[in-house]
């Protein structure tokens, strides 16, 4: 049973507007930091921030 595959399939069907890489990043963070909850939250926040900064409208010249 692949947890990542399940969530990616769900993204594809119901949340297609969400970036796949960001979803993968978050799943990976939660797997890697399952025993360190505050580190996991910090890294999820960072992943979202990185994604937002990568959007063309938010990129500084």
């Amino acid at each position: 049973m692949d947890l990542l595959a399940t969530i990616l399939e769900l993204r594809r069907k119901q949340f297609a507007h969400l970036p796949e890489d960001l979803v993968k990043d978050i799943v990976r963070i939660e797997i890697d930091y399952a025993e360190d909850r505050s580190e996991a939250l910090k890294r999820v926040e960072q992943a979202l921030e990185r994604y937002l900064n990568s959007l063309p409208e938010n990129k500084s010249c």
Partner: protein
Amino acid sequence: MLRIRSVRVSDFGPFKGEQRIDLPKEDGVVIVYGENMRGKTTLLNAIRYALFGRVLTRGSVEIQLHQLGNWESAAHGKYGFHVVLVFEQNGDTYELTRECRIRPGVSKPASNADYIEESFLTKNGSAMGPQEAVLELSRIMPETVSRFFLFDGELLQQYEELLRSESEMGRQIKEAIERILGVPVLTNGRADLGQVHKQAQNQEAKAAQRNQKTQQLGNLHAELLGRREAMQQESTRLRQELDRLKGTKTAKEEQAKKQEMLRGLLAQRERLQEEINSLDRKILEKEEKRKNLLTSSWRSLLAPRIKALREDVEEQLQLLREESTRRFVRAETAEALRKALSTGRCSLCEQSISGEAKQHLQNRLPEFEGTRQSVDPDNRIPSLEKQVSELRRYQTDASIGVIQEVSTSIRDFRVTKATSEDRFRELKEQTAGLDESEVRRTYAEYEKAVQEIVIVENGLKAQDAALAEIDGNISRIESELDKKGGSDLQKERKRREIAEALRGLFEEGVKVYRDLLRIKVEKDATALFLELTSEPDYASLSINSSYGLTIVHNDGNMIPVRSAGAEHVVALSLMGSLQKNAPLRGPIIMDSPFGRLDSLHTRRVIHALPNMAGQVLLFVYESEIEPKLARNELKGALRAEYRIERHSARYSKVEKVV
């Protein structure tokens, strides 16, 4: 996948000096044979100690460190012990050492405080820092899921709890199952993204407040978010309170079960006390009656004479009454005759009387008038009636027979009371060491918890409704901000939208993944179960929402009750299925798991072992699995055999079987 390569123990339990078990790199089964009290459970505990730093008894009570060292070594003044575990995980080799040394200055340790405990972890030969090591170990093998890798027959028995919806142990096992299956990855993600979403909403509100055009909306948004935060905190508090109350209810329920026998004795004691009180009342009543009977008992001595006298007077009275009646009839007749003679007519038929008839009547008249001269009996009747009444008053029921009957009743009651008092004393002794007020308190606390649960649940419902309303208001404000906000709000809005959608994805993911897991676990457990069971009429296993498995008969009916042996077979099927479906995989290490299985099931389980996990390590006694049977069933999958040899009651040695 975690794979153990070797276990080394030194002065641990009955293992004096250093002993080791090497496990091959290849998939398969390793069996360690040992009779009772030789140290099989100690070897399982050594692995547990290395990984988690603690050792549990069969009843899950933690064993003190100073009880773990080898007794013979201690007798020679050598205290302390260590365990070294070498294992591989995802291509990396780890060496974990955990040791217990006597504290300097202590000559004879008596408690944990007399020891210094240290652990070291190396990864591919390089030592890891203490914190890094703890984190790495908790990632490789979290203690919360250790029950699926290290277990014995008793632990297998606990899986039945998954079929009881309100069992606290069932809830804990379900949590552990979800953990090994990776569900917390999604539930933690959902929680983190919920937090991120909230932060994004606050950031958006602040940005809106900074802009004159959206300031008012921003203020309202911030206020609503603040209110929601407070309400959510209250909801969280209520949920925690509800969990606590449910925990209390379950704990009190379990405590009450344990106190069941005591409660029975106490109830019996109370019943006996009531019985004794009731007998006391009856004895008192009877004694009062007997006292009254004895007070008038002298009358019974005169009873025959009084009776004779009364009968004599009654006879006289009877005669006088008869005479009185006769006199009355005669007087009436004389009066009628006189009337007929004076009128010449019959007073009855009004006919004229002839002369001859008149003469006849005249002749008979003295016959009826003669009574006038005799004594009137009516004068004596009242005095005789009075005499009879007086004599009756002196009659009594206080006969010897009645008094004897009452006395017999009193004696019977006293005998019954003595028997009850004897049993009462016995029960009092049996319950003397027990705190009866605690039993009553347990029930009172259980009742209180049930009542409080209802109150908190109602409070939560109201809180959830209020939260839904405020969420609706926040959504409306956010829509307004979407329309009115400028480019300065764009990033904040995007952050909020993405975080919200991600949270929604993970929330949905939890549901979908749980459903898929249940289907998969049920399917794989069924396949393994059919391989393990010798009953051809069993068709499958059916899973519930807590991962509890019920046997399904060929006719489609569930088997509601199962034996301890069947419970083990079902539990092993679940274990195998979890190993197959869990992202976290490792060895299965079992201590004497076949004790409740018959030879046919044992053979089937041995045969299926290589399919249950990549690496299987068994600690068994020879009558549980005969070495010949294991070799025949496992063939090439049996990678190594060890035997624990007795040197003395406190010294065992692990020998490899060649």
